[in-house]
């Protein structure tokens, strides 16, 4: 039986958010020229990466604490803590280098897409075996990454095959251990960023040979984020017109699919703007190119992207994907060269 889910348990954004965003865009455009700009690497680390990693670690720790005391998957404090921590992850999900790649931490936080359905299989196996070793931090860290992280926890909290799975006691303990594992992992990422990785990016002389390489790494993460958006977050559920795949939407069980698109665009925009390094003309074009898909994504009113299978709604998602691809093209053609990044001879056009 396919899992049933109710409407999202709370509203992710309100119409007033739109005004805030437009206001924020106006502010940034109006004030940037008069500011004395800091080094862009410092700016990106201090204003974006480090606070976002801290928020991820802190919200994950909160989730672990709530999950240790509340077991009922529908409990609103638990869901709220889960949503906050997952939001914090989506905001950094493009920063896939360095601390996130050590020990496969990012994959253990976010095993998605899961084209072979490994996550539910792994979780079902865990529940069948009821192995107490999995309830320890070391035990779960050794287990399959498909059964760890935010996407696995989503099954435990939102999929009816798991929300009431037996044995009850073990399910409670397992979800608590999964949340604790997320907290351990995100704390390690945050610690590495704080203790060493940010400094390695600021004083490029080892891992990065010079500042250009650092900027190129950040540029690559911007591209990674946009590609993930267009090809995975939108592309996978869109499938083809004849064969849309709504059940491939990211985190549809918790009604987060649309929300992730908004979050990702909102965290990629400041990165792109910072990388434009004060070039006002380019910044204006980037802001316009981000604003279109952000507004469209906010207005979709389709939390699970079910519209991919509805011809009357599908075109809006296709248009959104196109706007994101336009944004990629602009970044490739206008932002890349200023950072010494040319389109790849081999990567663009393989054989």
């Amino acid at each position, binding site marked *: 039986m396919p899992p049933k889910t109710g409407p999202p348990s709370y509203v992710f954004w309100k119409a007033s958010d739109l005004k805030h965003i437009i206001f924020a865009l106006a502010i940034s455009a109006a004030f940037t020229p008069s500011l004395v700009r800091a080094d862009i690497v410092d700016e990106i680390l201090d204003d974006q990466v480090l606070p976002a990693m801290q928020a991820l670690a802190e919200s994950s720790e909160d989730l672990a604490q709530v999950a240790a005391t509340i077991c009922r998957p529908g409990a609103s404090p638990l869901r709220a803590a889960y949503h906050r921590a997952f939001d914090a992850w989506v905001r950094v999900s493009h920063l896939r*280098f360095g601390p996130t790649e050590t020990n*496969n931490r990012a*994959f253990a936080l976010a*095993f998605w*897409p*899961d*084209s*072979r359905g*490994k996550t539910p299989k792994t979780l079902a196996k865990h529940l069948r075996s009821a192995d107490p070793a999995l309830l320890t931090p070391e035990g779960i860290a050794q287990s399959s*990454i498909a059964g760890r992280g935010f996407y696995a926890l989503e099954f435990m909290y939102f999929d009816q095959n798991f929300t009431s799975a037996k044995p009850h006691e073990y399910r409670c303990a397992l979800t608590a251990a999964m949340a604790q594992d997320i907290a351990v992992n995100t704390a390690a990422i945050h610690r590495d960023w704080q203790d060493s990785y940010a400094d390695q990016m600021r004083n490029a002389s080892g891992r990065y040979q010079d500042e250009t390489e650092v900027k*190129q790494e950040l540029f*690559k993460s911007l591209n990674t984020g946009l590609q993930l958006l267009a*090809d*995975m977050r939108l*592309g*996978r559920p869109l*499938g083809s017109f004849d064969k849309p795949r709504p059940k491939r939407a990211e985190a549809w069980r918790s009604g987060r699919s649309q929300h992730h698109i908004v979050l990702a665009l909102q965290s990629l925009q400041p990165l792109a703007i910072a990388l434009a390094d004060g070039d006002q003309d380019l910044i204006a074009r980037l802001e316009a190119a981000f604003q279109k898909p952000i507004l469209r994504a906010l207005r979709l009113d389709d939390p699970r992207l079910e519209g991919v299978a509805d011809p009357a709604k599908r075109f809006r998602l296709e248009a959104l994907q196109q706007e994101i691809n336009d944004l990629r093209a602009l970044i490739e053609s206008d932002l890349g060269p200023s950072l010494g990044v*040319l389109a*790849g*001879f*081999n*990567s663009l056009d*393989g*054989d």
Partner: protein
Amino acid sequence: MTSRRGFLAGLLASSLAPTPSWADLGRPAFLTAAKNPDGSYLLAGLSEAGAIQFTCPLPGRGHAAAAHPTRPEAVAFARRPGRFADVIDCRNGTPLARLEPPKGHHFYGHGLFTPDGSRLFTTENDYENGRGRIGIWEVARGYRRIGSFDSGGIGPHDMLLRQSQSGPQLAIANGGIETHPNSGRAKLNLPQMRPNLSLLSLDGQVQEVMELAPELHLNSIRHLAISSQGILGFAMQWQGDPGADLPLLGLYEPGTPPDLLAEGDPRLRNMRGYGGSVAFSPDGLTIAVTSPRGGVVQVMETSSGHIIKEHALRDVCGLATAQNGFIASTGLGAIAALTGHTAKQLRHHDLAWDNHLVPLT
């Protein structure tokens, strides 16, 4: 009347005395195609340290190349749908012959010489009939076309020579994708595609055909490497939906089932579904695969199949066995040595290196 071929044959014959050899060029280690900053194309010979030892201009974008076993002649293959393969005297860049595929065929961009250097084989698309063919060219007669045989599948791409107990054989990566020049590079048969790795005798007799499980039928087997023990490595390119979790590198020892490496390791996703070039380390204990899309080289242990190292290298594609591990080239002009756990840039040239580094053996 002196025919073009007759003239070329004479030219080749006269260049045999005194016998020229690769040593005249300081023994280059690799051949590779590249693009100049001005947009023109060339074939280059590189030393083991990545220094350019010679360059020859090409009329269009190249792909791979084949080196004659003894004479300093290289055949530079055009990128598919290839309309030319230029035979070049690598001592001075003189074009010796231009091979053109027969009507209704195009080259795929790879080829090789027989061990005695008497024949050249080319992977070809017989596009009107949707069949893969191997073209045969007689070297001593000015690279005259003398025939062709079936490749054992659709879309033969890379091809290597392998020594078996019954003598030398061709290992052919039949990528499985049907294309037609009228449709550009469009893939015409994805729902039905069935790639394979075929082993053929030098006269075209099929000896073995390796196919993967049906659920991997969209995983195009495209590039090959061979270890000193005769084990084949094959790199694949996924044609299905992005985000699928799939192996992109396998080992095949004829007579045994294929061994897919790093299956289930999430880091395979860093390859973005695309294995570019593949090579074994000299001892055969590790095998590496490049992904220009992911900007990464993954090194795997052949015994366990585990990924033991990922090297981040932007726009990397060319890869070959080197003395202490691997050598890689990038579209940004870098030549890098990958040894153990380190990647070290050997050289940087103001060129975009194309897909492959072809070892001269």
